[in-house]
């Protein structure tokens, strides 16, 4: 069977599965719609959380990021896994004990303030909607590349699928599709990795293969070989640290705090039966996430080595060692067609020279060889996962798997984000503020309408991505880190932080982070409106905008504690609420208490 048939078959089967689950898991109450009835097994919820969390970026882009940055990409690996320790230890069990439907609901009740709740809703919606744009784009791209349908048709199909199970089943439908999507995406990610690890090192476990010797009998370690191959061409050493330690630590911390504060991840822990299960479930979530996150470094390093070996077939310096352009492999031609890979024969010798022409130390050597610049002018990092099976000549069905896996990753995250948005609108704004007297049935209908609206909005933004689409990660994590995480943590760990403190803190964190990002990325990301150029020389204290979330969080803590100290402590019933949240006994299923 050819690749295209395999792709239609595998992607079609996975979609049929999601729709089947949607029909089986319709939501009949608000409790089912918002928190899947509160009866999800902790291991199952761990799996759903992993799919909820791992987005198109984790599946498609991260391994490529590691492939080109090497050690320096560790900030993402550490940040996006280390955040789960904070979530498990500092937030998840207590918020589960609180036993309500949404994150803003906790902030509103704990700080006895509608204003605080509205601020939280705004942060949640901005963070989630910007995040969802990337997912819709991922869906469109995956369809476009693998199924050869136009980008917008791809987005429409993706929207249709999400619409079906998210509107019908709410959190219940999303939970069970996410479990299926986790299985699809993890299988799709690990199978090519195992094949490639066996090819290069003889070890089936990629995590072991990355630290093992090459299978070619040379006895050289894979990482040493990779370091040698790329430094020979002027690239920076793979395993060494290139940037500043402080900036990397700050970026890592920002990503950790942001991860722990993202509402669509937090609400997943409202679906388990009790507090002990919420703790356990966070551990399982990290286990399932770690399977991908510990495989990705191996995929990155091995794909980079394969790519280098394809283009540079022998020792640097001999002309025959550079691959002749007309002998390039089929996958090279395929991906040239997509524009993700581009070659330009600068010295017109008909051969490919791929090296680091920005490295002054290598310039003399390149000149003496008659090289006139790097000729691989575009090597998109997404290629490292998307083309990986082809580069390693894996069977056709593996390529089909990668297509289904990318779609599963994008759809599962999109659905989780949309639920967070829809529940904030129907539960926090509509039921909580404007129409507190609506019946449960009406609220369920409102939830479905909000969900439908959110899907349409996401689709629209996916089709007409605003200029800032590429910056959304910085924004989403920055907002979650600087506004939501500190407010939630202080709400649990301090009885003294009061309404005025929490609101001042959230606004301080939020505005400082927005300001810092806009300073370098432009006001509302409008190109050209940035006041300072976005480079290391102009960053204040060397802090890059992506790393500012941790600073924003610190400001949030400082302002909240200071203002609370100067104003009256929270009323007695709030102090009792905090004491109650701190002990597991007496947890109830959200929506079914009292």
């Amino acid at each position, binding site marked *: 069977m050819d690749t295209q048939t395999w792709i239609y078959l595998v992607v079609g089967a996975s979609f049929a599965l999601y729709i089947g689950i949607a029909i089986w898991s319709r939501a009949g109450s608000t409790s089912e719609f918002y928190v899947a009835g509160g009866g999800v097994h902790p291991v199952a919820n761990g799996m759903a959380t992993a799919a909820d969390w791992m987005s198109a970026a984790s599946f498609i882009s991260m391994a490529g990021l590691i492939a080109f940055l090497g050690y320096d990409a560790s900030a993402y690996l550490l940040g996006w896994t280390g955040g789960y320790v904070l979530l498990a*230890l500092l937030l998840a069990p207590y918020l589960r004990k609180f036993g309500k439907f949404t994150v803003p609901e906790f902030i509103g009740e704990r700080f006895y303030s509608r204003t605080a709740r509205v601020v939280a809703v705004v942060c949640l919606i901005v963070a989630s909607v910007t995040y969802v744009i990337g997912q819709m784009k991922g869906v469109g791209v995956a369809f476009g590349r693998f199924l050869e349908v136009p980008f917008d048709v791809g987005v429409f199909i993706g929207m249709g699928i999400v619409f079906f199970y998210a509107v019908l089943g709410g959190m219940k439908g999303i939970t069970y599709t996410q479990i299926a999507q986790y299985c699809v995406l993890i299988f799709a990610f690990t199978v090519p990795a195992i094949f490639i690890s066996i090819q290069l090192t003889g070890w089936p476990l990629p995590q072991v293969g990355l630290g093992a010797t090459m299978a070619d009998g040379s006895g050289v370690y894979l990482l040493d070989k990779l370091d040698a191959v790329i430094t020979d061409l002027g690239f920076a050493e793979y395993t060494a640290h290139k940037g500043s330690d402080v900036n990397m630590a700050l970026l890592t911390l920002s990503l*950790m705090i942001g991860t722990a504060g993202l509402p669509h991840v937090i609400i997943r822990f409202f679906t388990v039966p009790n507090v002990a299960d919420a*703790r356990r479930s966070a*551990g399982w979530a990290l286990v399932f996430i770690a399977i991908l996150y510990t495989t990705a470094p191996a995929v990155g390093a091995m794909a980079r080595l394969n790519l280098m070996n394809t283009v540079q077939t022998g020792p640097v310096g001999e002309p025959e060692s550079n691959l002749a352009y007309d002998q390039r492999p089929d996958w090279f031609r395929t991906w040239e067609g997509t524009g993700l890979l581009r070659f330009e024969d600068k010295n017109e010798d008909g051969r490919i020279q791929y090296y680091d022409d920005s490295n002054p130390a290598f310039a003399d050597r390149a000149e003496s060889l008659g090289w006139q610049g790097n000729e691989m002018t575009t090597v998109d990092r997404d290629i490292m996962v998307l083309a990986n099976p082809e580069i390693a000549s894996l069977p056709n069905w593996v390529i089909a798997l990668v297509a289904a896996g990318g779609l599963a990753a994008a759809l599962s995250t999109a659905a989780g984000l949309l639920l967070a948005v829809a529940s904030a609108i129907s539960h926090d704004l509509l039921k909580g503020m404007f129409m507190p007297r609506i019946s449960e049935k009406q609220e369920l209908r409102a939830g479905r309408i909000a969900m439908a609206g959110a899907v349409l909005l996401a689709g629209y933004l996916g089709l007409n991505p605003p200029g800032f689409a590429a910056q959304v990660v910085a924004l989403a994590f920055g907002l979650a880190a600087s506004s939501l995480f500190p407010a939630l943590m202080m709400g649990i760990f301090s009885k003294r932080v009061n309404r005025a403190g929490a609101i001042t803190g959230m606004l301080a964190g939020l505005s400082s982070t927005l300001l810092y990002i806009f300073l370098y990325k432009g006001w509302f990301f409008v190109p050209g409106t940035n006041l300072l150029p976005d480079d290391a020389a102009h960053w204040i204290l060397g802090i890059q905008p992506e790393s500012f979330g941790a600073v924003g969080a610190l400001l949030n803590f400082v302002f909240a504690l200071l203002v609370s100290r100067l104003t009256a402590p929270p009323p007695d019933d709030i102090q009792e609420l905090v*004491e109650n949240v701190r002990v597991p*006994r007496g947890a109830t299923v959200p929506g079914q208490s009292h």
Partner: protein
Amino acid sequence: MNSPDQSTGARAYWRANLRLLAKLILIWAFVSFGLGIFLAGWLDQFRIGGYPLGFFFAQQGAIYVFIALIFVYVRRMNRLDRQYGVNEE
């Protein structure tokens, strides 16, 4: 209302919880920021197989420690819950 006895118990439970959290967070910070970032360059002179040690912690080891930390937390908290009688039925 809580009897004075119960609230002293609750306070002791919360203090025990905070002590456990402090220990775990310290390990978490040491592994990720210490071994994975600030000490990574120095650790790279040692090796596990082909992995330079600092690189290993940054891209593999720290993640395994994170998982272990959460499960240690789960076990210790379950024990604390029972010890102070605040566990769920």
